């Protein structure tokens, strides 16, 4: 391997990868080409199942026993990887090409100390001795900014937090100074603020070590932050490729356009830039249409042309290596605004439906199965107070461990509150568990669950599941009446009536989520708690489901509590926002108030951490240190004080001693913070949109 090689690090030419199963050959990647130059970061973007991870595994030559490269070539530093022997491959894996994975916990060996796992790499590839390898490991752990490196090296993976584990995986990948780094959704499993810190680290280390990167993600915002070039994939094919600027600002493929139009941007106003969803569903690998794969979902589809033959990649002249897989790219008016969708008029909020006052929820847990005896109190919710009005959407925002799911459980009656009260239409339900609630109350407050693959019972038909809800809520008198009602509910969520006879496994994720919504609205719910209802869905489906949820809610004047960690979508659909951290409400106010200064320092950091897929947006850069403390062991004083970048502005160490009081900043806008008024006054907006000539 020549050290002085200066051609492209990675060249993929017309790659075809297929998986061979009982049902025959299933192509996963078709006619894929891309080039990664030294020091360049290449982004691979697409929805789940588009083949982006398969490309990465193809580069690693690790496709399993069913996968095979059936055409094209992958050249690493000019040499075709197919010509490598098994032993040569082993030698470049980990030393020349290294990989960082999605789930840090799963990618570290649970029964091996961190130190040994790190030291292994240089010992295999550089023939280092134990001592030398240990020193190198220490150096790398320091480089990924972990505190107390020696202790970390001596611990097992489960003793570290998710963020720390991912740093270790990064350190491991960089141990042998590889020339190509493949990152497969490296931050998907992490919280937003932790993600921001990891992305920062990756960018920085990539520059320091001069490694080229292949960055795989479904998040366009992240790609914008990390990469120089990107390649958009759809159903096994690259549909558009080019530099970040070109693809983001001058896209030339209908799918890329659809993708951008279907994600909400916190920088833009929802009325000025409504969400436009891509109709239809992602085709299954064995049911791809003839001709253009995107054809059936494309607004510019032309029968007889787009479905006639496979579409080749076309070069966009004048741009630097900008290609699109579209026959009609130079016929389409790319500047035309999206077709006007029927806009849902904002509903005027009515009376208070749900009032939560000083709600507390503590859990007692035994600390460990082996120590027994001693129990600890986990304060999952601490003095929560808020109210929600009819036809209003209140968003509850926070990261893992902030207590939002516990709040949902208490509202639903799956848990009873430790203190305080929850009033649903002036009736306290905080201590009434679900089994003791009357049918009317149960039907009045319903929930949409997060995971579409888990929300429906796989053993019963769709129709039977909805019918059961109707039976339970005593809707309709006869079986026939209920059946009619069930079919109407299918209409409501825009699914064909034939779905009543289907099993959940025959539905896509988005369709399942629609059934979940139908179920929640079956008994004329007054309050619907939506727990991250779209976060597990693909981007192009998210918009449609969000839109549906909003429509039904406005139409029926239902109160919606929308739990989410995604600030973009929250800004898009909510009327008011409540930010939670470690069981406390740290900020609450109308959407405009929360998204504009003055902020709570946590809200400020959260806003800065959200990746935004818009080149015109400028963000203030705030990176939080460390991880979210465990709810089992919260810090004294203000819950946010361990990570707060503005702690220094509060004199006398007040933050470490006392929980701050709720301060009212404006009508309906309150924050829980010790910061003096003048500091709050002086805050600048986190997100600013560059004024460009185009707008």
């Amino acid at each position: 391997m020549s050290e002085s090689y200066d051609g492209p690090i990675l060249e993929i030419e017309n790659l075809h990868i297929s998986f061979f199963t009982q049902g025959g050959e299933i192509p996963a990647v078709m006619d894929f080409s891309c080039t990664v130059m030294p020091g360049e970061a290449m982004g691979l973007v697409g929805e789940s199942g588009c083949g982006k991870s398969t490309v990465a595994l193809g580069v690693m030559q690790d496709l399993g026993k069913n996968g095979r490269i059936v055409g094209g070539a992958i050249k690493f530093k000019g040499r075709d990887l197919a010509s490598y022997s098994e032993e040569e491959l082993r030698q470049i894996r980990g030393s020349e090409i290294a990989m960082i994975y999605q789930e840090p916990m799963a990618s570290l060996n649970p029964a091996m100390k961190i130190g040994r796992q790190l030291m292994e790499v240089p010992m295999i590839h550089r023939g280092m001795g134990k001592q030398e390898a240990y020193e190198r490991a220490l150096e790398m752990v320091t480089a990924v900014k972990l505190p107390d490196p020696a202790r970390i090296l001596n611990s097992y993976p489960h003793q570290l937090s998710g963020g720390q584990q991912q740093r270790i995986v990064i350190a491991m990948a960089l141990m042998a100074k590889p020339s190509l780094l493949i990152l497969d959704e490296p931050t998907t499993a992490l919280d937003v603020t932790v993600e921001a810190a990891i992305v920062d680290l990756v960018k920085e280390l990539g520059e320091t070590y001069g490694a080229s990167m292949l960055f795989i993600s479904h998040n366009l915002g992240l790609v914008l932050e990390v990469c120089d070039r990107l390649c958009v994939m759809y159903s096994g094919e690259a549909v558009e490729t080019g530099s970040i600027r070109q693809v983001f600002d001058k896209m030339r493929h209908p799918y890329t356009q659809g993708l951008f139009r279907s994600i909400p941007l916190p920088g833009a106003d929802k009325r000025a830039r409504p969400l436009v969803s891509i109709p239809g569903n992602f085709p299954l690998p064995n049911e791809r249409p003839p001709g253009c794969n995107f054809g059936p979902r494309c607004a510019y589809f032309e029968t007889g042309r787009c479905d006639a033959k496979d579409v080749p990649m076309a070069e966009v002249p004048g741009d630097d290596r900008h290609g699109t897989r579209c026959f009609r790219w130079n016929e389409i008016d790319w500047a035309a605004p999206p077709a006007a969708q029927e806009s849902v008029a904002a509903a005027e909020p009515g009376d208070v439906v749900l009032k939560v006052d000083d709600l507390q929820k503590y859990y007692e847990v035994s600390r460990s199965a082996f120590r027994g005896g001693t129990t600890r109190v986990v304060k999952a919710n601490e003095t929560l107070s808020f109210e929600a009005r009819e036809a209003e959407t209140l968003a509850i925002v926070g990261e893992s461990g902030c207590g939002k799911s516990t709040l949902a459980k208490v509202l639903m009656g799956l848990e009873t509150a430790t203190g305080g009260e929850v009033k649903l239409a002036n009736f306290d339900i905080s201590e009434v568990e679900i089994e003791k609630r009357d049918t009317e109350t149960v039907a009045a407050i319903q929930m949409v669950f997060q995971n579409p693959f888990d929300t429906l019972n796989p053993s019963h038909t769709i129709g039977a599941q909805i019918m059961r809800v109707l039976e339970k809520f005593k809707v309709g008198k006869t079986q026939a009446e209920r059946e009619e009602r069930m079919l109407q509910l299918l209409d409501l969520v825009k699914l064909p009536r034939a779905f009543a006879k289907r099993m959940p496994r025959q539905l896509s994720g988005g369709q399942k989520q629609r059934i979940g919504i139908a179920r929640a609205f079956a008994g004329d719910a007054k309050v619907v708690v939506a727990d991250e209802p779209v976060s597990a869905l693909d981007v192009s489906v998210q918009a449609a489901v969000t839109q549906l949820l909003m429509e039904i809610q406005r139409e029926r004047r239902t109160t919606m509590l929308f739990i989410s960690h995604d600030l973009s979508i929250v800004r898009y659909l909510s009327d008011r926002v409540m930010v939670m951290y470690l069981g406390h409400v740290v900020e609450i106010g109308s959407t405009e108030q929360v998204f504009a200064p003055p902020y709570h320092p946590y809200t400020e950091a959260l806003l800065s951490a959200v990746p935004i897929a818009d080149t015109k947006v400028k963000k203030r850069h705030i990176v939080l240190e460390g991880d979210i403390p465990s709810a089992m062991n919260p810090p004294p004083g203000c819950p946010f004080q361990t990570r707060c970048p503005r702690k220094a502005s509060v004199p006398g160490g007040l933050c470490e001693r006392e929980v701050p009081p709720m301060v009212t900043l404006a009508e309906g806008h309150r924050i829980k913070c010790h910061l003096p008024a003048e500091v709050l006054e002086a805050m600048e907006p986190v997100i600013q949109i560059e004024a460009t000539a185009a707008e």
Partner: protein
Amino acid sequence: MEPLGWGAIIGRMFVQFIPVWIALALVFLVSIRFKKRLGLYGKLMNSPVGMIGLALVLFWVFTALFADWVATFAPLDQVAQLKNKAPGLPHPEIEGAYYLLGGDNLGRDVFSRMVYGSQSVLSIAPLATLFAFMVGVTLGLPAGYLGGRMDAGLSFLANLVLAFPVILLFYLLVTPEMRETGIPQVMAGVLFLFPIIFFWVFFYSRYETRPELMWPLLAGTVVFGGWAYSGLAFNADPTGVFAMDANLLNVFVSVVFVNSPGVFRIVRGLAMDIKTRDYVAAAQTRGEGPFYIMLWEILPNARGPLIVDFCLRIGYTTILLGTLGFFGLGVSPESPDWGSTINEGRKLLSIYPHPALPPALALMSLVLGLNFLADGLREQSLKD
């Protein structure tokens, strides 16, 4: 008459089994033809291991069903001249009849005894396993789903039984003294109650909202269950359809008792796993009672592992029954069941191995079939 050679013996046995071959061929033709519509069972037709297993199991099921046609003699017919005689010898009196696999130490036909032996195994093992499942499911679901004190208590009891060496338990439970005390009846009275409880709760929880359907179902459960219960547990069925003699009841109850803690553990584990799913939470948030959730939300989704375990457990029960027969526990001395036949044959094993080998191979092939079947089912149920 000349004794038969091995070729002729095998040929004649093949002919004897003709009803079984026809039935097997029919089942497989139909199953393969309609495999797309038969769910998990249909998918089994894609797995060679599963098909071999199914064929072995069905072979013995059909042999048991058609035993009167397949066997050449009655299981207790004795011919003094053929004591311990080698396979293929002609019957001294009946023209054209042979002891195909020789005679045992009392001059009975080994082949016919093996064929009839399948009846005794296949009438007890699946049924006992089914009862064990009823007990295990009825107790395991609430233990896993509700947890708490009841779980702790039941788990302790289950572990108690599991910690007992099986053979010791059998030596203590399956004895004539035990039958004198009437303890087996008491155990049967308790254990056989579980299916009735199970079906009562099963129908009640589902059709509570639709009384017009619920009452007939519950009435049916009670009438039919009570009828079978009175006959099986207390031998008090006036019509005599359901009856079990004291020996059989003792064995049956002991096997159910030994098996149910294992089922309990599996069901409890599955319930604990499945109760964390969102669809269970969804059921809770619409106000479903715990029994509906256990029986209609959790149980259907635990069926895959349970079916696999059911097959394995029938095999295990078959081995247990063989062990009982091997030690002469709870079976009458003339019984043709495989375990006792092996035990009788082993005494003269090094001189006359032929009486012990056929039942040994028969038992092995049945259990092997059940294990293959379970393996095939497991493999296919994971592919979805």
